[in-house]
């Protein structure tokens, strides 16, 4: 399985296509049936030719014997046969391909147009022999020809009479036929491969549209549809079904989106009112100095803080939703990666220093310009730095690197914390997911990495989490650069 997949990877695309494989199977069956038909034809027609030859030979034997006393007396004068044969010493190549040979008890030549008794037989078929022998043509040439013959032992003398026919033409015909069979199989196979390629090309062209659409759907665009070419075939049925399915999904997604927007709006408004009321309350308590009122003010301020963090969570959810649902709203600009990283590390520098954490930056010397939404990417990196600060112990190191790796620009943030077990790497990207004790021991809403994932999706970046020892490295890969330099 593994090997098969590896091999398949090296094959050109077309040979891996399902339709192509189907067509090749069909073509192979077609070739096989052609071979079967031609083989049957071959055997039956040469069987017929052989029977005809044998019939002629039998007629010859009968003719020779009919010229002697054999039928009436039961004895044969070999002389009569010899005389008969001497008249036909040469072969008449076209009209009469008959061969004869009469030998005595010691296989010595007596008469006929064959020179010698055959020493090597090619084939024995019942009473029939096939062999190669020199024959004398009427124009005195001597040629090696294949012969099919029958041997008759002359009853009372021990002489042997061989009567046969030159089957050169039949053999030639046979070879020709076999050549024809071979070439027609080759031609059929080539045509079949060509046909398979063509058929799969047609099919895959139509499937290509479906695949292209699937990709746009995966990227979050539900508005595209497959065009239907009105031939009413299965592809049209498939396309039509997919279109209808998308229509339905789009309606549902829009319904869900508007519902969640409504929920967001409906919850945010009363929360804001609550917060504003608390704000007013805090302000009215601000100038009062007696102890109980001061306590009330403190409680109010705590409540404002709580309301603010709820509102921030809401804002984060809505921001992620906006990034995911309307990637077009991003304001993509040319930004110097070095500057962007340095601005952030400048922002985080003092707080890292306060906690005795070393904050390293490594940026490429070319000051690569990347195409990004500066604010969104800064927020994503700020979230990564927030996390890194949260989990790196005092005295640890955090590093931010922006560089070309394997010809692609990437930004990586590494911390000195405990890392995240590999099996949770996908999980932590989801909204509100916080691992283990984190939900109790550290502040946060579990949206930091979801926002990173959303920003990455918006920029078509790849997010890779890696456990380094110690700590976790989050890589944002495949940035679009303005002037791609080869690392």
């Amino acid at each position: 399985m593994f090997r098969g997949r590896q091999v398949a990877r090296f094959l050109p695309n077309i040979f891996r296509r399902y339709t192509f494989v189907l067509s090749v199977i069909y073509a192979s069956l077609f070739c096989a049936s052609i071979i079967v038909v031609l083989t049957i034809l071959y055997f039956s027609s040469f069987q017929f030719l052989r029977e005809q030859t044998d019939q002629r030979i039998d007629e010859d034997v009968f003719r020779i014997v009919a010229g002697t006393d054999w039928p009436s007396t039961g004895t044969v004068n070999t002389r009569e046969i010899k005389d008969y044969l001497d008249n036909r010493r040469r072969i008449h190549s076209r009209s009469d391909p008959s061969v004869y040979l009469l030998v005595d008890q010691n296989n010595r030549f007596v008469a006929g147009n064959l020179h010698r008794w055959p020493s090597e037989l090619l084939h024995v078929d019942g009473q029939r022999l096939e062999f190669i022998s020199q024959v004398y043509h009427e124009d005195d040439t001597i040629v090696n020809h294949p012969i099919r013959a029958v041997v008759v032992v002359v009853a009372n003398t021990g002489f042997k009479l061989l009567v046969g026919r030159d089957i050169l033409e039949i053999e030639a015909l046979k070879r020709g036929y076999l050549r024809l069979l071979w070439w027609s199989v080759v031609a059929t196979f080539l045509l079949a491969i060509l046909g398979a390629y063509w058929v799969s090309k047609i099919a895959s062209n139509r499937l290509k549209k479906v695949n292209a659409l699937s990709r746009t759907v995966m990227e979050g665009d539900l508005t595209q549809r497959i065009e239907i070419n009105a031939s009413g075939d299965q592809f049209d049925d498939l396309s039509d079904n997919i279109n209808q399915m998308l229509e339905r999904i789009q309606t549902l997604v829009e319904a869900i989106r508007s519902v969640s927007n409504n929920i967001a709006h409906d919850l945010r408004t009363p929360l804001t009112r609550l917060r504003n009321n608390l704000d007013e309350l805090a302000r009215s308590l601000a100038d009062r100095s007696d102890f109980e009122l001061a306590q009330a003010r403190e409680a109010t301020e705590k409540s404002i803080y709580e309301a603010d963090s709820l509102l921030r969570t809401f804002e984060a959810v809505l921001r992620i939703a906006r990034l995911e649902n309307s990637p077009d709203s991003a304001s993509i600009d040319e930004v110097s990666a070095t500057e962007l990283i340095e601005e952030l590390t400048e922002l985080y520098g003092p707080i890292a220093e306060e906690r005795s954490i070393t904050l390293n930056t490594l940026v490429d010397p070319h000051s690569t310009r990347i195409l990004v939404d500066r604010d969104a990417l800064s927020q994503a990196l700020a979230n990564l730095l927030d996390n890194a600060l949260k989990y790196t112990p005092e005295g640890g190191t955090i590093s931010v690197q922006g560089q070309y790796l394997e010809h692609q620009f990437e930004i990586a943030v590494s911390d000195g914390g405990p890392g995240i077990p590999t099996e949770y790497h996908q999980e932590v990207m989801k909204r509100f997911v916080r691992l283990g004790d984190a939900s109790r021991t550290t502040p946060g809403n579990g949206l930091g990495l979801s926002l990173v994932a959303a920003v990455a999706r918006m920029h078509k970046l790849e997010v890779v989490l890696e456990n380094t020892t110690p700590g976790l490295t989050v890589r944002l890969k495949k940035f679009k650069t303005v002037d791609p330099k080869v690392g």
Partner: protein
Amino acid sequence: MRILVVEDDEHTRRFIVKGLKESGHLAEEAETGIDGLHRARTEEFDALIVDRMLPQLGGLELVRQLREDNVVTPILILSALGEVNQRVEGLKSGSDDYLQKPFSFAELLARIESIVRRVNKKEIETRLMVGELHMDLIKREVRMRGKKIDIRPIEFRILEVLMRSSGQLVTRTMLLERVWNYSFDPQTNVVDTHISRLRSKIDVPFEYPLIHTIRGSGYRMSPPNEDE
């Protein structure tokens, strides 16, 4: 100051008006864009607070029409839409600041005071002064009682923002926007550590602190005699 609040949501409008009155300002109300436009054209205001989504006439369109009529009153746009391009759109219409809902009243007031001050100060400043702290914007130099203070570029920028709004609240969000040009709040309180560094250079070595923390909101820079 006399401030016009153009906002269709009654609750938000009341909240702003009440806050403004409590802070000693005169607040006028308009419910629709048309009404707001009419009043802004015919009456004299020190500042306008305009909601972006208004019935009949949108906030941005209102600002555009006022600017076409050469009304230069500073305007702050309030909006639930806070993405960068929406902010840019808001500022391009001719408004002076853009505040995303929900907001705290302190933030709104700080921004209103800041834009009014900015718009009224026509000449370009080259020197800023708060108490005995002097900032030379051309030489990029800060002196306290004539003694030069060694200060990093980022700290210079923070100090500049604070000094330009001296006597007024500058929120953390405002600092993030004006110093770093970020429209998001990082989870960690990164701004505070920058301020405490700045304090260690200009407040700690001298008797009177100039940078004051306003609880839950931000910072205010004011000379010692104005300090309560």
